């Protein structure tokens, strides 16, 4: 039944899949309904979302060394040259 309301445990068990948009449409509706009604779970879902976003932001703050593209180009030119010589 689509109108089934999840318990806190049911909702928390699905938290990761919810944040990753991996729930079925029925589960999604049930989780959202629970979170709307339950302040404690709503806080936890918000916290987890912020945690994921925070980690993701840090993960992406890795700077590509400026000369790496040139080094790769040189490597590939060398490889092309080697091929030409064969």
């Amino acid at each position, binding site marked *: 039944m689509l109108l089934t309301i999840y318990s806190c445990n049911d909702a928390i068990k699905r938290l990761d899949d919810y944040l990753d948009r991996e729930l079925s449409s029925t589960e999604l509706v049930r989780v959202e309904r629970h979170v709307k009604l339950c302040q404690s779970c709503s806080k936890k879902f918000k*916290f987890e979302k912020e945690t994921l976003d925070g980690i993701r932001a840090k993960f992406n703050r*890795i700077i590509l060394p400026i000369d790496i593209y040139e080094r790769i180009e040189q490597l590939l030119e060398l*490889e*092309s040259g080697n091929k030409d010589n064969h």
Partner: protein
Amino acid sequence: MEMLAKGSAETFNALLEPVLAKSYAMAYHMSGNKEEAEDLVQEAALLAFRGFGSFQLGTNFKAWFFRIVVNCAHSLHRKRQREPKVTALEDAEDLYLYTHTAKEGLHRKFDNPAELVLDRMSIDQIKQAIESLPFDYRLVCALYFLEEISYQEIADIIDIPVGTVRSRLHRGRKLLQKSLWDLAVENNIVQSLKEESGALR
């Protein structure tokens, strides 16, 4: 080996350039240091260039190249066989950061304690946290945190079943949260937030 036509080499370079930064970041998180990340990306670029003839234009170059980076990371890992000390998987409970930030009273004064803790952590500390994960978990987490991609796409890149991606990701996140929290405690980030929280009262 079949020679790449000049046009193909140009096409290859044009496809490679936009995915290089993400590939490097992924290699960095997988290997744990800059030098190895550079080597991994260069090796992957060379292998991809050699195998470019098998790439179907119009399909997803990024996923194709990521797969090569992952394979290179696997080979490197097998060569060095240096598995980090692994936290017992059952050690990390659900909602680890939530529970611990709440226990330390950080929810009372701060709207967004997770963001505050993470903001004060350096890139090196984040790197340390991901390095504490077993290699297989590290691969999945590196892809997951760098790209907003589905479990199925991660499964296709690493060539493992989607159920394995799900379980590694769920457990990997818990372990990562535990590791981040431990580092935040060790580096006095939690203590200073607690003091600020007290000062705000």
